[in-house]
């Protein structure tokens, strides 16, 4: 029928969506008497204009890759995991417990253990909604949202009453031991040539990229991925094929929660070096937009995560260097989410019409 060619579907749709978001953002800026071109220049300069800016952009992108992949895996199983935020925070708890438990001799050992801890805790937090969905039919969207709140409340308790060192005033854990501190990009040979000043982006970036490859292989090369995708496309058909819905729901959510939890090695272990309240700072929710924009493909997720990293860092720069209120950053991000996520079909329809017009014009000329 009137379908878009694959290349247009993959590249043109997100780009045109972005363009729409940019145009409307510009109009909003104009309406408050600011110059959109100036704002764009500040954002690009701040986020991409220097190694330092890149250091922040990549740092944010790292978190978004994890949470985006988390949403992607669940999505392919037909599950909408909105609980990335809570899973990431509980994953942070896992990281903190691992890091504080031993005087780690070397960061490599600590990283391996903390990654396992983060994934385990994140997965455990996703396990309950998964079980409720699989066995009781409680809708995963509702339960994962509720679990975000429960996670936030739990973290307050843990940080205030359990992990807070006596005498410390703020709700946070103790600082991690030196052996559990991760090298930032400026500490890694090779990267250090580019990043000469300390940046928050750290070794976790490479783990995030590796996980993107792992998730791709899982979904499209393994038997488990085949079953996840089949189940996600049609539960009735999966039942016919003897694919156990309970098993796939739980496994997919465990993987998803584990990935969301793993983002904590980036922010908790790699950057803050202690566990703070609200450690994930909304990255769990951004993951939904990242997965939507990345068309639920790991490669797309990486690209979308970079874009959102840019928006995060560029937005922060706006607050720093212009009189544009910091809330504008949220407006711009909201518009990008709106257009790339929610209004995706609208953009596609417009493009489909255009393509159909071009096609019929060609047909007329040929005739």
């Amino acid at each position, binding site marked *: *029928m*009137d*379908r878009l060619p694959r290349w247009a579907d993959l590249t043109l749709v997100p780009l045109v969506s972005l363009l729409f978001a940019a145009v409307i953002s510009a109009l909003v800026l104009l309406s408050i008497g600011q110059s959109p071109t100036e704002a764009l220049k500040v954002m690009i300069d701040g986020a991409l204009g220097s190694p330092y800016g890149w250091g922040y952009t990549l740092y944010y992108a790292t978190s978004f890759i994890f949470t985006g992949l988390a949403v992607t895996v669940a999505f392919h199983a037909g599950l909408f995991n909105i609980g990335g935020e809570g899973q990431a925070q509980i994953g942070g708890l896992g990281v903190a417990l691992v890091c504080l438990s031993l005087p780690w001799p070397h960061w490599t050992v600590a990283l391996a253990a903390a990654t396992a801890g983060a994934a385990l805790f994140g997965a455990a937090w996703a396990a309950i909604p998964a079980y409720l969905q699989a066995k009781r039919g409680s809708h995963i969207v509702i339960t994962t949202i509720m679990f975000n709140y429960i996670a936030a409340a739990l973290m307050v308790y843990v940080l205030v009453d359990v992990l807070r060192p006596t005498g410390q005033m703020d709700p946070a854990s103790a600082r991690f031991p030196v052996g559990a501190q991760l090298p930032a990009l400026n500490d890694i040979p090779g990267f250090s040539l580019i990043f000469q000043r300390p940046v928050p982006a750290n070794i976790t970036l490479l783990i995030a990229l590796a996980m993107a490859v792992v998730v791709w*292989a899982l979904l499209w*090369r*393994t*038997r488990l991925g*085949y*079953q996840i*995708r*089949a189940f996600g*496309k*049609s539960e*009735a*058909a999966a*039942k*016919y*094929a*003897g*694919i*156990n819905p309970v098993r796939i729901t739980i496994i997919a959510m465990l993987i998803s929660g584990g990935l969301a939890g793993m983002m904590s090695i980036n922010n908790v272990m790699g950057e803050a070096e202690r566990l703070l309240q609200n450690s994930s700072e909304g990255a769990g929710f951004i993951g939904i937009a990242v997965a939507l924009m990345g068309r639920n493909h790991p490669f797309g997720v990486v690209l979308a995560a970079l874009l959102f990293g840019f928006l995060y860092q560029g937005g922060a720069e706006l607050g720093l260097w212009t009189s544009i209120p910091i809330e504008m950053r949220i407006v711009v991000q909201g518009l990008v989410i709106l257009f790339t996520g929610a209004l995706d079909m609208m953009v596609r329809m417009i493009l489909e019409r255009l393509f*159909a017009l071009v*096609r019929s014009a060609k047909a007329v000329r040929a005739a």
Partner: protein
Amino acid sequence: MAASADNMGRQATAAPFAIELKGISKAFGPVQANKDINIAVPKGTIHGIIGENGAGKSTLMSILYGFYKADSGQILVGGQPTPIPDSQSAIRAGIGMVFQHFKLVQNFTVLENIVLGAEEGALLNTSLGKARQVLKDLAQEYGLNVDPDALIEDLSVGHQQRVEILKALYRQADILILDEPTGVLTPDEADHLFRILRGLKDQGKTIILITHKLREIMEATDNVSVMRRGTMVATVKTRDTSPEQLAELMVGRKVLLEVEKTPPAPGKVVLSVQDLRVRDEHGVERLKGVSLDIRAGEILGIAGVAGNGQSELLAALGGMTKASGTITLNGVPLPLSGPGSDGQSRREAGIAHVPEDRHHHGLILDFAAWENVAFGYHNDPKYQKSALFMDNDALRADTEKKMATYDVRPPIPTLEAKNFSGGNQQKIVVAREVEQNPDLLLIGQPTRGVDIGAIEFIHKQIVALRDAGKAILLVSVELDEIMSLSDRIAVMFDGQIMGMRDPASTDERELGMLMAGMTGTSDAKLKKEAY
């Protein structure tokens, strides 16, 4: 009466055609669904439109009912050019449509469904009262008896269809379009429907009957138009044609309408089912103690109106639903609930299953053909590269081979399943299941929505598998298919087997009685509900 007939005759000279289509064309992208279609349907006749799936029948009717806009061409209603941009205009022009899948609100009464969308004023009572009166008149006039206060969900399928017809008549339709109306009916109900249609015709209504069943065309219509690949290939008087000629026009080549098969040579019992019971999610028993045996080299056909437990029988045997009772395959008992009762275990035991609904069960429509070829057999060692990874290359090669043997078109393993025609989709499913060389093949509605050419092919495969000494359980609502393929016929009604018959010594009438719940000749009484 004579006067009114005369009057109609005079009208007929002014506008001899109830509906005329002139040069209708419609394309979806590169696909030309309708190409320069011309039809003229005389007033007060039953006009059949026949064609294979994808021939463009449904598109044409959707244009007539305002769902699609034709790219070019003209519609004349009663001699007047009438543009039909939406279904409201179609209704205003006196066109009524009875869809294949009823559009009724299940928990509304008959009356409420009839006024739905035609309510006059803010208060429901006035229009309900009016509808009740009109309904009474219509029931008298056409023999369309339905209890106006019954809930739709309590009505049989045949009655639901009558409600659809009444809906159209209530909106004063003069031209009634019926899309595959008999797919869900017993032969008896179908006969009743045709009697109603003849009654409507006698009252001056014009009826367009869309079907792929040659027998119905021959039985019910005055004229028939044949469509093939978007074009109208012929319009003939029904009495001047034959099923063979129509089939040839539909397919474009000579077709074997009969299945060629040798007498069966049944061997040992492969599947034995004792007292099989299935409850649905509401706790209602859908399968009420079914017992049967199938032998090697035998096709057991299950006849019955859709919804009488056949689907549950297939689902229970195929491991799709929990059941109680016992089943043994080659003497080995298989669990019916708990571990080992899922589809995987059934496949490992040697049961292959071509499900009734290939879109919802048999295929993942968004998956490529090669991914669908592994569906259900994704754990098969021949598709694995290692403990972790699947061997996608082997799978694609295997798909290519199967596509060649089964003449799947286009033979592109990477094409998504949804992009194949119904017949080719079914060939992919049949290829997947039959090529596993199972001991028992469960096959439901093997040719539903499949074109005649593919039907011929699929029937041959089923018979070939039987001749290779395999047991086959065939479920179909097409009585012709059951009669021509089966070596034994079991008739199901209301979750039970009403009787076993030998196809050589039974006929449609007897099977039809059993399908309606009437057992044998001695105690011919209705088991559930009068039709």
